[in-house]
């Protein structure tokens, strides 16, 4: 039992904190918010040079073989600067799914390119009718003589506009009809029949909705051998939730720091706001919730490779708890900034919006407490 950072992990943290503090300021964020790309290719190149894109990729595919704890260290620092590069889409979700489901040839073709920054990925899974149920997929992949034909619609695809290849989930229909298995398919962003409508994502970065009508794919577009991909999808999403939880911790910490400073400086009735006990207690509650969130994000990261039930409960527990804390810390940060907190003139709102987006992604607190409860009960005979 040891929850101290190793020397390598400390170095990683220092380097990413330094980078974010040096490269990400309010001007940069405002520029990115109005940028049609939503992120900076130059920064992405630096990510590659710093080894962050290679971080979780296995060494045999030119990666560094890092784990969820290292990703969490990066993400927390990204949160502090509201980094908008498509890291979760490409590295945390995309590369993980390729590594978990892909054939040796597919991994060899893709992972080294992710590691060196020359290829970006996205994961198109969510559908409107499924809400947050990962098992519910209506998009179809019909077996054809040449390969596969994909049809369906996906929503809330993170950074799909930036991806070179999109991993699309679809129900496999083979020669015998619907198989009941979900397959993952690699679709080039330029594939005929694929249409992307992207939008500015709440809190920075971009997302898109995707329509697939008769997208023809070769045989080897299917990742792996066509086993049901649901367990891998659940694993990858749990892993992404741990990473996003760490990012949320960074965002919350920045909001807490900023709000604390403001309450010391802002004077009303002849004294600083922080001289009031009601304000001090509110800040104490915020600090506590940031710390609880930090514990939960770390716990989810440390359990990413645990048996599925354990992992999923840790991930859902973290997502639910951090989501709840994020709303509290975010809303109170605005409250304590008074009217200015509601304006675009301060950055409090931008950080808050990213927290709202976090709580929404992959399902909010209510959904994940319910999932946590459901998973808890399957282990106990009724």
């Amino acid at each position, binding site marked *: 039992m040891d*929850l101290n950072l190793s020397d390598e992990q400390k170095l990683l943290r220092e380097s990413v904190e330094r980078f974010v503090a040096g490269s990400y300021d309010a001007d940069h964020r405002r520029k990115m918010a109005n940028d049609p790309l939503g992120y900076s290719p130059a920064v992405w190149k630096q990510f590659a040079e710093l080894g962050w894109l290679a971080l979780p990729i296995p060494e045999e595919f030119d990666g560094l073989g890092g784990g969820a704890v290292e990703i969490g260290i990066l993400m927390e620092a990204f949160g502090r600067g509201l980094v908008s590069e498509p890291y979760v889409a490409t590295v945390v979700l995309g590369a993980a799914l390729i590594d978990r489901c892909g054939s040796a040839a597919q991994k060899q073709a893709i992972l080294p390119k992710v590691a060196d920054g020359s290829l970006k990925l996205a994961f198109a899974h969510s559908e409107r009718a499924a809400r947050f149920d990962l098992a519910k997929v209506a998009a179809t992949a019909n077996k054809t003589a040449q390969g596969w034909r994909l049809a369906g619609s996906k929503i809330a695809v993170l950074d799909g506009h930036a991806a070179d290849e999109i991993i699309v989930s679809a129900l496999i229909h083979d020669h015998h009809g619907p198989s009941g298995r979900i397959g993952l398919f690699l679709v080039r962003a330029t594939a005929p029949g694929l249409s992307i409508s992207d939008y500015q994502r709440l809190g920075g970065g971009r997302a898109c909705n995707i329509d697939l009508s008769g997208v023809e794919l070769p045989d080897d577009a299917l990742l792996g051998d066509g086993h049901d991909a649901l367990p891998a999808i659940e694993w990858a999403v749990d892993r992404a939730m741990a990473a996003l939880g760490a990012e949320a911790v960074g965002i919350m910490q920045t909001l807490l720091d900023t709000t604390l400073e403001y309450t010391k400086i802002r004077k009303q009735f002849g004294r600083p706001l922080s001289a009031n*006990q009601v304000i*001090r207690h509110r800040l104490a509650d915020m600090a506590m919730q940031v710390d609880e969130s930090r514990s939960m994000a770390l716990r989810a990261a440390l359990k990413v490779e645990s048996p599925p039930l354990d992992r999923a409960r840790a991930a859902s527990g973290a997502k639910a708890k951090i989501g709840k804390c994020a709303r509290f810390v975010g809303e109170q940060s605005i409250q304590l900034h008074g009217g200015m907190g509601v304006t675009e003139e301060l950055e409090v709102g931008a950080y808050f919006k990213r927290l709202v987006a976090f709580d929404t992604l992959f399902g909010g607190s209510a959904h994940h407490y*319910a999932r946590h*409860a459901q998973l*808890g009960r399957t282990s106990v005979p009724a």
Partner: protein
Amino acid sequence: MDLTFNAEERAFQSEVRGFIAKNLTDEMKRATALTPSVFSDPDIGMAWQRALHRQGWGAPGWPVEYGGPDWTPAQRWIFETESARAGVPNVNVMGVKMVGPVIIGFGSPEQKNFYLPRILSGEDYWCQGYSEPGSGSDLSSLKTRAVRDGDDYIINGTKIWTTHAHHANRMFALVRTSDGERQQDGISFILIDMTTPGITTRPILTIGGDHEVNQVFFDDVRVPVANRVGDEGKGWTYGKYLLEFERGSGIASAKLREGLKAIAELAESDLTGRAIDSPDIASRISEVEVDIDALEMTELRVLSALQTGQNPGAVSSILKLRNSEIRQAVTRLGVDVIGHDALAVEPMRPLYKLNHEPATPEDMLTVVPEYLNGRAYTIFGGTSEIQRDIIAKMMLGI
């Protein structure tokens, strides 16, 4: 980073389990499960203390030279966790965990030689004389006065919320020996024999129906000056040391988890008509379980820092607050889970020695009393409001 225990630690875990299996009787276990107050009564609690002492585990936090087992923080974690899982008696902490460290830190050689072995063996049973009717959160405003008369102090005043004063043969108390410029000055730390003439104890019943706390009156009580720990007038420093002693080694999550498990089992039982089938109850159980997970992780983070000799810092001040709030959430959930049976509250004590058939199943007997008594968790040992003041000051610098 690693959440799992190493081979050595797992071996220690087996040793603890073996010890508990051999020494925890069914009677102790049942009595503990059926005690809705904070501490076990002395017959149960001291039986366990004696078993621990025989094993050399009577005082986990003490230095080896005074009889401590020299455990690492991880070993203490394992010991506390296994103890909670097994449902061992809740030994009154006033001796081993509270006055013991103060005597070790500031007592004279004579005091150490006399008191420490008697704490370890359970021969002495201690209570704490801190709060007064007029001094709650503002503890240092205390008025109980000790006036020097030759080799004695003569003590007059009253102490309140004195846990197990009706069982204790000794009390450690903060008393005023002079009036300084600040109200923290002039307080001394005194050890009092509870059989001294002039001491009377009045029981206070809590809303759960338990007699755990008391008011103690001092009427010209003569206590030898030799019973003062450390310097005259420095008692506030020693008292604060005592309060901080447990900081950084707080291990509460395992007990909370067991408490929640008992409620979850009731919720899954036909006794409650399967309360868990209500999605609201199921989600609330998860919400509390996740809060316990977070607390446990924070405890482990503090523990990891301690293992490598780092100061865990102000994070540990969060532990008391969250522990007390989560405990209340567990007990609140319990009342909702048992439904109809929350109306029937058994007034007789102890619940493990009833001579009649209670109105509710035995597993539910403590649920309402624990909820009611449990309101005290956010009040004693520094209210939640005081804890938030401390967090704001220590963590945030405001």
